[in-house]
């Protein structure tokens, strides 16, 4: 493909919030449509004490991930993206509420490619679609927050993703964020 992007000011915002092994942390990466970083923010790890786990109970995970970390880190971003992307189903609704832009869940699939770039296929799950973002990959599954899951909204988001996919791998920033967080964690002597 030969694509000359004129989208210097268009950005995608990637959100990652992890709560594995009792340590909660989050990161956002805002890239332009070429995958080049425009903003990157991360939180210090939060390790709830045993007492806090008892006090908060099962709400602790939701509270830390969806309210504290997500709201704080999305609010701290200075370069506002056109579209927020997350890969955790639980984060989609709170991200949609918090962010000033549209939000979508993006996930890889093993499905056969759709006929042409830009094609969409509605899925059984409400607000969920397969999109063929480029000609040399499996279709991606996008899910929209339910109250906003209109087909026009999905088409607008798909168009944005197709444009970006011409010059970047749409899922790649997640792995870069993971590497950056791992490196920062090692630097700060975390286990």
């Amino acid at each position, binding site marked *: *493909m*030969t*694509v*000359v*992007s004129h989208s210097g000011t268009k950005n995608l915002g990637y959100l990652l919030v992890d709560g594995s092994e009792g340590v909660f942390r989050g990161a956002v*990466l805002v890239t332009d449509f*070429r*995958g*080049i*970083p*425009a*903003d*990157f*923010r*991360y*939180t*210090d790890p*939060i390790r*709830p*004490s045993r*007492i*806090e786990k008892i*006090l908060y109970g099962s709400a602790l995970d939701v*509270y*830390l991930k969806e*309210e*504290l*970390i997500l*709201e*704080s*880190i999305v*609010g*701290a971003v*200075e370069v506002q993206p056109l579209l927020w992307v997350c890969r955790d189903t639980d984060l989609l609704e709170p991200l949609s509420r918090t962010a000033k832009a549209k939000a979508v869940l993006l996930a890889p699939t093993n499905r056969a*490619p759709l006929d042409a770039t830009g094609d969409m296929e509605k899925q059984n799950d409400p607000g969920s679609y397969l999109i063929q973002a*480029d*000609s*040399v*990959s*499996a279709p991606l599954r996008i899910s929209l927050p339910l109250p906003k899951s209109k087909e026009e909204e999905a088409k607008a988001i798909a168009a944005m993703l197709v444009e970006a*996919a*011409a*010059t*970047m*791998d749409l899922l*790649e920033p997640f*792995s*870069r*964020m993971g*590497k*950056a967080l791992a*490196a*920062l964690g090692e630097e700060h002597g975390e286990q």
Partner: protein
Amino acid sequence: MSSEDIRTYLARLFLGKAKVRSLRPQGKEVVLRTVGRVVETHPLRPPERVLGSALYGSAMDVLVKGSCISKAVHEAVKGNIRGGTFSFDGRLAVKGEKVVRDRRVFLHSLGGFTVRCIGAVGRITPLPIEVRNRLPWFRGRSNSLKKGEVLLALYSPILEEGLLKSVLNKERGTLLVWYNPRRAWKARSLFLVRNFSSGGSLEWKWIDIH
């Protein structure tokens, strides 16, 4: 039963004697215990760390300039200064560590938890972009090759003109690329082929996929 008890039992049984012990007050001290309790309070979160003012200055975008000058030098230049400001170009250091303004810190506190959001775009920018092998989804492989060439991998999209450096990650089969953002606009694809007509060497070929 302890050995002392066994000895006493046998002494009573066979000797008819009972060992009598007296309680001597010497060496015994009465221990007084109070039922009062001291309550220890622990905060749910550790106390906030206090950053040095120099670091806060850096985080808050305050420009810190100047350095210490000796009293003698100060006296000598003082008379020549009649107004305005002057500064000596010195580098700010805390405990020998140079303070670099590379991150902005946002503090948020909610429900007893405090989260610090640290801006560090300078830390992720040097990381390479990892480009996957797209060969399994490429439909036009037969049209793109010459005789004797075997297609091994297809990396796409790659911004050709902005490509500064690329490294093939043989373990993962991915291509790590670094871009010059000022020149990286035109997206193309890169073939990795083995050319048997020239001795089986590996070759890279730029192509356009429509």
